[in-house]
């Protein structure tokens, strides 16, 4: 069984935010109305961690981190869900079952990375965005929690494709939208257990770190970063 994970090289990332746009369009994440956005209900599965700086002016540098659901190996969110609407799959992806969620938002309260978002109101998707719908992804109704799923629908598609071609699933078959569009090739995705995969090599890199390591959630999204001299 593979164990899917992601590595983001912050030394390469230019914070062009293409991954964020790609994620929004790929997953039909709703665009809330202006009022709700002002209330802090804007929905992003992927976002840049708020700016946070290193060094002293003028040698200062922003360290913005592309944040998505870190797909923890010890997910705190699944522990508290009362209806098993979020759970960890065998391939390590922390999935959501939207039709089962009762919207108690306990998982959000327990996510130390605030990676989850909630459909506060009816889908207010704006007109223009309607057409950009990705037909592979279901639209979430109001009152359920949603989050990044490593574009799990792409995995399904890839599986079927491989099956129809009578071959095994290769690493190149399945890649989330954010990793696909990254212009700097800063986002790597693959099987963390497969010693031949690139991510496997990268997570043994000295620059590797994960967010909030001390919580023991064992995120499967790793970051690479080294201080430039």
């Amino acid at each position, binding site marked *: 069984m593979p164990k899917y994970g992601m590595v983001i090289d912050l030394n390469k990332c230019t914070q*062009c935010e*293409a991954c964020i*746009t790609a994620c929004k369009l790929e997953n039909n994440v709703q*665009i809330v109305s202006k009022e709700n956005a002002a209330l802090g209900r804007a929905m992003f599965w992927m976002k840049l961690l708020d700016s946070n700086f290193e060094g002293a002016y003028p040698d200062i540098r922003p360290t913005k981190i592309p944040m998505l659901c870190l797909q923890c190996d010890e997910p705190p969110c699944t522990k508290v869900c009362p209806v098993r609407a979020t759970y960890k799959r065998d391939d390590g992806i922390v999935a959501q079952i939207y039709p089962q969620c009762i919207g108690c938002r306990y998982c959000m309260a327990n996510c130390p990375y605030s990676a989850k978002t909630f459909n506060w109101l009816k889908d207010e998707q704006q007109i223009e965005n309607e057409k950009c719908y990705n037909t592979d992804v279901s639209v979430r109704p109001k009152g359920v929690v949603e989050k990044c799923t490593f574009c799990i629908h792409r995995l399904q598609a890839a599986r079927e494709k491989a099956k129809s071609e009578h071959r095994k699933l290769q690493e190149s078959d399945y890649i989330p939208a954010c990793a696909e569009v990254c212009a700097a*090739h800063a986002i790597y995705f693959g099987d963390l257990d497969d010693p031949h995969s690139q991510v496997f090599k990268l997570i043994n890199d000295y620059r590797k770190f994960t967010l909030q390591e001390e919580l023991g959630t064992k995120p499967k999204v790793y970051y690479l970063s080294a201080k*430039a001299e």
Partner: protein
Amino acid sequence: MEINRRDFMKLIGGSLAGLALGGAAGAMMKLPKSMEAVLYSGPRIESWKLTACTKCPGGCSLKVRLIDNFPIQVFGNPLSPVNEGGICSMGLASVASIYHPSRLTGPVKNVNGEFVPISYDEAYKILSDELKKIISQNKHDDVFLVTQTESRLRAGMFNKFSEEIGFKNLILDNFRTASSFPYKNISVDAPDFIDFDKCDYLLNFGSQMAEISNNPLYYTRKINEHRSKGFKITSVQPKLTPGIAKSDDWIPLLPVSFKDFALGIAYVLLRDEKYDKNFTGKYFSGFNDFRQYVLDNYYPDKAQELTGVPSDKILQIGREFENASAPAAYFDEAVLYNSNGTQNASAIIALNALKGFRGFGKIKDNFFSSMLGKDNESIENISFAKLKERLSGNESIQALIISSSNFVFNNPGQEALKKQLSSIPFIVSFSSFVDETSSFAHLIIPDHDDFEKIDLLFDESMGIPAITIRQPVVSQFFNTVDTGDILISLMKDLKPGIKIPFQNYSDYIKQAANKIYSNREGILMDQSKPTAIEKGLRKIGWNTEQYPSFDDFWDSLLEAGGWWNPFADKESYNPKIDFKQIFNKGSLLPKSSLYSLPNNNLRLNIFRKNLDYKGSMSIYPVLVEQFGSNWSVFYELWAEINPDTARKFSVNNRSKVVLRTNKGKFTAILIYNPAVMPGNLDVPFGLGHVDFGDNCGVNPLAYSDDLSDKQTGKATFSETLVEIVSASPGDSPSSAQIMTNENKMTGTESRSIYA
């Protein structure tokens, strides 16, 4: 609206995006009735097509995903050498514009303030009659054409048109032309590219290479590569944008004193005698005057006084520059965004000349120019400045022809501009939306959407000729006409008996492509990069790509989405330069007043985000929402300020402030950002459209002083003074918050995360 609600319920019930696509269609999508039927009950068959992006000059190759032949999503084409599968936010969002509800579905005529739809023939008749009248009165000089199209072939078409008819005033103002203007200004042609194979030191003046440049995605990759090779990048910029943050050294500097800084560096080279004597001897006429001038006026302490950059820093940069074997001092359009932009650019060119432009290169016998005709010469004699001058002067303008340009929004002094425009007797626009500019038009003949057009995009900035083809991925939705076709038929009507070698625009494109075919070099973008062996074989004339006829080539070109020539040879760039008219003794600008701020004043520094290339973001809701998202500011203007400055004015983080310039008051959300130049108030450009898509926020240009570069008429982005009138409480981050951000990120004290 009622309908939407019901559709939404349906959508929730069905809970399948497929349904959403259908269900929502009736209310949501602006489409011909016939197509809606398909949308409702299509078989949902997926297909992919290749096309190119025209949002910027880069010409990325796009992979468009269609469901029942409706473009749904866009991705990058992994085989394209330009973007290698990458794509930027604008490209991703671009698919939305074709369905935009406020898109014009056909020609409209302005009947006292109201735009009423008319048939194309009628519209065309009005246009041609109007022009005929002018020509008969022999007032060619009173006709102005403005276009900012990034497609150089399209620009070429405009050129051809204006030449044939005899309209001298073509303002061709796209990124590439603007960037090469300073070279044209000293009558040399610009270098094709930065030679990253040789270049070992990049001194970047005000260009957001990885964000807004003539090939952002390529530069994104190259910057990383360049740095991983251990070479340095130094950026001189008033704002530390994420892209600039990639450079090893950031010199916060106001654009007004780029020139002083560049010459300050030049001084170091001259003083250390580390400049390329061979080159200066051969190509640099009037070098000794220049040398003298710099040595007299730009000794480090003086430079420090002029720029505010500490002299030892200037020395350091200077030494790095002079010791590099092939340094490049790079600039592009952005350098022109201030009142002495051209001068700045010339200084930078001079600096390059001292090292013989070793960092730059040209493509050997580049056949693009032959292919394009004279695409960007016109700017030599005419730039936006001239239009402004004419508008403000009493000389009347008979007609104004605008294509893919929204200059009212992109320029300061908008009130005056609007007044002047409304006095022009005849304005025709080819915009497919009623935006700030085209709302003044008397006639709008909407052009196709980008996904319905055909075009060829060229790029040399990679050091190899690359051509991506924009082909229509959908048959046109509405009653729109390709501007190119209109121009062609106009030529025929206005100049009877003219010889035009092509029937319509796509013919014209084909002929350009024919040049590639006959050139017989290069390969299509349907294969991975050629290996060294392949290259070797090529050198000895081996060529696997044989096409029996041009049509075969054309078909496979459409299939591949592009063509490039990895085997093209480079040659060094050594132009004959002459600065007599620019730097002569005594013409030393005084220190800019912007440095000595009157108290309780700040500098309004307008910066551009990569999400908005030229004020056209507002039709893409995804981008508008995302615009301020990493400051968690939504649909509102924000102003970044250095915390120290903020404390001086005692305004809190995230407080709502009212700002005042000479042009009036506007509100913004104040954001603490320690990377902002003290005394600056950085506001983003792109929000604040009045009647163009999603209007929210404020357009800072509307409130900035009406200054612009003398020669190019480019707007100034950072020379307006602003003061904070009032501020709401807001929340000041608790000390703990600031102290512990580091640990919050990584969870460990020691771990450093320098991105």
